[in-house]
């Protein structure tokens, strides 16, 4: 049986990827951000899962104005880094797990989550920056990755409640896989930020900190949060926080918080990061 044993959330700021790729992580501006991930890097070395289901959003690197899938699951053998206009990030190709992905596609669609299935997918900073933050700069990523791309760009994105329920469905589907695999689920994006209009630069630290607490202790309540509240309190791009609910739903009712980190700013964004263990693992 496959089991989800842990999960984490992290922002996926593009400038963080650039800082890693250009060797700037020790600079005064960036050092506090990267110091905040040292605990996780050490933990991740001791706890390498077979597969990471990585929830992220594409930033119009693989998707285009032509097609807007709400949930898209990466079912291919591998996912090359996308060229986002500066050339592809110098990171390893992301290796998939097509067998588990096919099982998830079947389980989730029969569980009434009508996913889009992606067999050819380039992955952008939304997926590769979290991998770099957790695993550094290896020759090859130590885990296989199943990307789950969520539309948080065109409104309406999926509701927080739908995301939470999708996470719960992922948990059921993983448990029904009859090969022994350890799986982690990552929810990325956030925390508060806004990249558009006169309100750009918006940061709401009290709201972010309460969001952490609610995600850990009251996910059922947090899943009721509406898009309007997220835009008001976490900024237009803070809507990405709905993706954290997918991770939380996948971990089961009870979790143990292992680590938390928060820092402002990372470029235009509040950097938020949380590591959770599933209580039944």
């Amino acid at each position, binding site marked *: 049986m496959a089991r989800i044993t842990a999960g984490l959330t992290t922002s996926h700021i593009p400038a963080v990827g650039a800082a890693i790729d250009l060797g700037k992580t020790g600079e005064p501006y960036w050092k506090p951000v990267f110091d905040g991930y040292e605990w996780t890097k050490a933990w991740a070395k001791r706890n390498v899962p077979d597969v990471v289901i990585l929830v992220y959003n594409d930033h119009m690197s693989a998707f285009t104005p032509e097609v807007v899938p709400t949930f898209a699951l990466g079912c291919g053998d591998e996912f090359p880094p996308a060229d986002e*206009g500066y050339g592809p990030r110098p990171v390893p190709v992301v290796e998939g797990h097509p067998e588990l992905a096919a099982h998830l596609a079947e389980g989730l669609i029969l569980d009434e989550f009508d996913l889009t299935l992606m067999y050819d997918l380039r992955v952008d900073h939304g997926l590769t920056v979290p991998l770099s933050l957790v695993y550094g700069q290896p020759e090859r990523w130590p885990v296989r990755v199943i990307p789950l791309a969520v539309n948080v760009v065109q409104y309406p994105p999926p509701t927080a409640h739908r995301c939470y329920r999708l996470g719960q469905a992922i948990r059921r589907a993983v448990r029904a896989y009859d090969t022994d695999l350890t799986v982690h689920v990552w929810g990325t994006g956030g925390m508060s930020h806004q990249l*558009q209009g006169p309100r*750009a630069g918006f940061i709401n630290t009290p709201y972010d900190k309460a969001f952490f607490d609610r995600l850990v202790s009251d996910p059922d309540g947090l899943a009721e949060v509406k898009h309007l509240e997220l835009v008001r309190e976490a900024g*237009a791009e803070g809507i990405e926080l709905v993706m954290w609910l997918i991770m939380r739903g996948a971990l089961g009712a009870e979790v143990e918080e292992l680590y938390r980190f928060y820092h402002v700013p990372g470029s235009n964004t509040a950097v938020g990061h949380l590591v959770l263990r599933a209580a039944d693992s």
Partner: protein
Amino acid sequence: MTSYTAEFDDVPGTRVFTASRAKKGYELNQFCMSLMKPENRERFKADERAYLDATKMTEAQKRAVLDRDYNAMLDEGGQIYFLAKIFATDGQSYLQAVSTMTGMPVDEYQRMMLSGGRSPDGWRSVKDGN
């Protein structure tokens, strides 16, 4: 009852990218996507007007791009992750481009971010003035 989309108009200084804005901005955003190819970036930089005139964009969309007026591009149905292809072509970072929408010089914007970002106070609701 206020519609889902209209409710967001109460958030100051914000234009969320709705399905109707996506329709309005379709050609603008497709132009942005064309800049994902290096050869197109070179053609655009060589003669911006000629490049834009070969698209189906409206004149208002073209004018907003030529002026690098990102707020006007949002009004014309642009979305920031599409528009990012324009400022990447210009060699600008998110922070540099985003600051232009706030009316603040980039160094002032950067200082605001370093001191904790824009406070939510006064930026939550037009109606409630909070």
